[in-house]
């Protein structure tokens, strides 16, 4: 299978400080890849580098073409939807307006109506709260809103940063169930950053372990789960 996203020797910088020291990874087309690691390992930094939110060096290929030299707006227009850590919802705008912004880059407005219906199919609670101000939604609902907004841009690749953060377990499992459906039904590739390793490895086919800006282990998710020493050292169980 071909890779929708491939990174080779990817470095990332916050100002003069190098935070990623040359990582290699790839996301297979139509599959879920997980980036795991402790706090400060560089997972969020990796997503920011892919989205061109911070300065980066190295090779990034998206659908076979280089992704370098562009800003976040351009990356978004190529079909990469980034749900950042902290959700990134427009708290002062309504649910409806947040969703419409998700569709901002779309050229094909005709398909939009069906896409809205599909998104409401995944997240019926959003349909109920459509005129509500986004900042008044619960944490779980805001996460759903962020994912829904990302979906409405009809992405080929979804970057998700810690979707489980700060949410109750029931809400989290609902969200992950929907993520699996999105991946399998709509064929959206997912690059998932998660601290909750078991959840991530359950959903993903490939996984990479990051530690202080470097990939230390990478491979099939099942292999990593089966590897006792890796599990104990890096995943804590």
């Amino acid at each position, binding site marked *: 299978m071909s890779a929708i996203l491939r990174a080779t020797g990817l470095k990332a910088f916050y100002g003069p400080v190098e935070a990623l020291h040359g990582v290699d990874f790839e996301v297979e087309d139509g599959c879920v890849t997980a980036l795991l690691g402790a706090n400060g390992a560089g997972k969020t930094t990796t997503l920011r580098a892919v989205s061109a939110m911070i300065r980066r060096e190295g090779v990034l290929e998206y659908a076979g073409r280089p992704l370098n030299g562009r800003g*976040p707006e351009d990356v978004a227009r190529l079909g990469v939807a980034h749900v950042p850590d902290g959700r990134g919802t*427009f708290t*002062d705008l309504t649910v409806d307006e947040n969703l419409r912004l998700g569709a901002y880059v779309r050229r094909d407005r005709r398909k939009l109506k069906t896409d809205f219906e599909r998104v409401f199919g995944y997240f019926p609670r959003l349909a109920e709260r459509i005129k509500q101000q986004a900042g008044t939604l619960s944490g779980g609902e805001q996460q759903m809103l962020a994912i829904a907004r990302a979906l409405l*841009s009809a992405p080929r690749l979804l970057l998700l940063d810690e979707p489980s953060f700060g949410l109750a377990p029931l809400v989290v499992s609902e969200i992950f169930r929907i993520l699996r459906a999105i991946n399998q039904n709509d064929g959206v590739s997912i690059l998932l950053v998660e601290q909750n390793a078991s959840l991530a490895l359950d959903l993903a086919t490939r996984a990479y372990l990051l530690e202080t800006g470097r990939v230390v282990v990478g491979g099939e998710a099942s292999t990593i789960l089966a590897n006792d020493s890796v599990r104990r050292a890096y995943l804590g169980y």
Partner: protein
Amino acid sequence: MVELQHQLASGLALGGVYAITALALVMIFQATQLLNFAQGEMAMFSTYIAWTLINNGWSFWSAFAATLALSFAGGVAIQRLIVRPFAHAPVLASVIIFIGLSFIFNALAGFFFGYSVQTFDSPFDGPPWFGNKFMSASESGSVVVSVAVLALVFAFFRFTPLGLAMRAAAQNPTSARLVGVRVGWMLALGWGLAAAIGAVAGMMAAPIVYLDPNMMGGILLYAFAGAVLGGIDNPWGAVLGGFLVGVVENLLGAYVVGEEVKLSVALVVIIAVLVAKPSGLFGRRIVARV
């Protein structure tokens, strides 16, 4: 009683000018956290452009439209060329830049159009509308134009994708980029809009205060007072504030403090609001991040 209604009417007419100027100020403030001290001089310069076109035979409304277009372009250019390079500079630097801009526009107006006071005819002449006894035709027309501008701006921001994108860019630039909004250009558009709105304000004010390079100084102050009163980060509060300031200033000037010290009313309003309730009547509480 009739006299009071007259004062109210002219207060509303000028209040409309203050309201739309305040709107322009708040638009720029929301997007950039900066106060455009050059807003008045930009509006004045735009009005001179309209005046020149009219003197060359253009009809009022075609001059109006052309001036709006030119002002819009000018606003975009100013943002791209002068404001953007200093986007991350300290507050004092941007204040200095805007004062510098106001100097330049004032000088350009004086140099090209002279310093003598000119008349600028309102497009609304003739008998008072609907035979009313309180507002002259030009006052009614001015209020209608102001309200029309406000309604158009409101509709633009509320119902169009571009307006939505601009609001998103102002509120959360990072997330806006992630959905593909070109935040830089949204800022430029915002400036263009503010400049165009300011041009309307100038053209509505000129029939009342006459056209000269220093005509907008007092108006800018009242607009600031209105914006501060309504809430510097709330566009519709600012609009309401502008109308309020217009009416109050007129009434106080006519009945209480006298015409000559009306500007100090604005001064008092600004200082009182900023000290007592900085967020104004409708703004959010301003929290400084430590």
